[in-house]
């Protein structure tokens, strides 16, 4: 399927981890035909991702920055615009579980960490990119949500799951408000995957345990998430906006 990415410029956040969704989304966007893919993260490894994109023969820049800070986001978007003149696709991938304190012991400042990392970041990047997309009368925004919004009883991660519910609602609001400007916004909600989201070295073991209760019997791969994200990024989904798509092997069915 030709996803129609020729001539398109994408910006992907959370691209530093070499085992994360962001990097895989950036690479697939490039492989499927995007002209340029800008990548950002707070860690140095984001440069590795950009180097890999260039090896594919694509234009790329790595911008190191903290997307929970407005000044950093503004400077990021300015750099991308100076370099590539447009942004057709924004993939809001950056995020994580910043608060692992159980509910009973969580302080307001613990909760704020997750809201800040997962919601404020998307608010800032979206605010910065929307005026550009409005002017283009074209744009596709994909937010990475989480299956945790529909899973309970893990003890920790309450504020993480709540922050991702906010991402769902932010997705729908952005979709509704910006549709008239030709901008679509959708959310991909991953199930468990062997990314840095799972702490420690035994990621595959942890997934193996979780997989027993997943109808398809396995965890998610980076490619599973990237494929769904690319489809929403492309005009093949031109009539889909405001959707939350769970990519979780059937573990979320509501």
């Amino acid at each position, binding site marked *: *399927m030709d*996803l129609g990415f020729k001539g398109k410029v994408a910006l992907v956040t959370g691209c530093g981890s070499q085992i994360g969704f962001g990097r895989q989304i950036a690479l697939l966007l490039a492989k*499927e035909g995007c002209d340029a893919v800008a990548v950002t993260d707070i860690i140095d490894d984001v440069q590795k991702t950009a180097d890999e994109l260039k090896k594919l023969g694509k234009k790329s820049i790595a911008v190191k920055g903290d997307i929970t800070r407005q000044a950093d986001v503004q400077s990021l978007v300015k750099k991308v615009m100076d370099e590539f003149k447009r942004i057709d696709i924004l993939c809001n991938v950056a995020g994580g579980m910043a608060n692992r304190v159980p509910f009973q012991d969580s302080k307001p400042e613990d909760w704020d960490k997750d809201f800040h990392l997962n919601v404020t970041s998307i608010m800032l990047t979206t605010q910065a990119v929307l005026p550009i997309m409005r002017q283009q009368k074209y744009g596709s925004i994909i937010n990475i949500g989480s299956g945790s919004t529909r899973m309970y009883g893990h003890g920790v991660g309450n504020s993480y799951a709540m922050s991702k519910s906010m991402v769902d609602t932010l997705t*729908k609001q952005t*979709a*509704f408000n910006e*549709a*008239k400007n030709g901008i*679509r916004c959708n959310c991909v909600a991953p*199930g468990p995957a062997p990314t840095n989201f799972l702490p420690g070295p035994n990621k595959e073991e942890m997934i193996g345990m979780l997989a027993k209760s*997943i*109808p*398809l*019997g*396995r965890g*998610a*791969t980076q490619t*599973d998430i990237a*494929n*769904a994200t*690319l*489809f929403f990024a492309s005009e*093949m*989904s*031109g*009539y*889909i*906006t*405001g*959707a939350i*798509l*769970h*990519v*979780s*092997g*059937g573990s*979320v*069915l509501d």
Partner: protein
Amino acid sequence: MDLGFKGKVALVTGAGSQKGFGKEIALTLAREGCEAVVVTDVVDDLEQTAADVKKTGAKSLAVKADITNQAAVEAMVKKALGQFKKIDVLCNVAGAILQKDFMPIDTQNTDTWKKQMDLNLFGMMYVSRAVVPQMREMKHGAIVNIGSGSTHQFKMGVQVYAISKYAIDLFTKQLAYVEGKYGIRCNCIAPGPAPTNFGAVLREGQQGPPPSPEQMAKMREGMMAEFPLGRMGTPADIANISVLMASEATSYITGQIIQVSGGNVME
């Protein structure tokens, strides 16, 4: 994106209408690399669909069958399996609307409700139960059901139709949950309004002469004004996502209902 359809055989129901979703899905499956696409419907135009599928270079077989007749459905699936030995992809597209408007419950016609459930829900059940056992044997299979945005759009004023489509949402999730361990996925695509034959029933029985093209355009404009993306869906909009959900690119997605309605339905 390579959707991994090489060597795959698909069965698409409701593929007779020349401007419907079924035909567009069959053609897209063929263009994206399926080896064979079996098409079925109760109307004669089905042969045209098969001929058009063959033009893409894929094999095709048209099997006329009434989806509400379980024996006919079983014979249809048997014929498909006889010819192509397997069915990797099943697209349950057949369905229609038999009654417009909400009506007070005490004026409802019981037979119309039964017919609507027969056509939309039981038809899908007959086809699925005939196809799933050999998917289990293969340890893989992708089922795509066509639902409807009307499950969340009360002002469309369709009652038993929406109920039958809501049943399909749940049928999708249950099938996904139960058959997941056999490598069978099941997802549902819920279209918003589109220029298919579908609207004809909604206009049936209306008083006075049919609306003029100008009136139609005005009506459409009024309707579209309420749609966030400001346009109707096209058969291609529905076919693209259906074919993606049938493909290996979505091998970790199951039990999902995807609204393809221009932002009209956000649940």
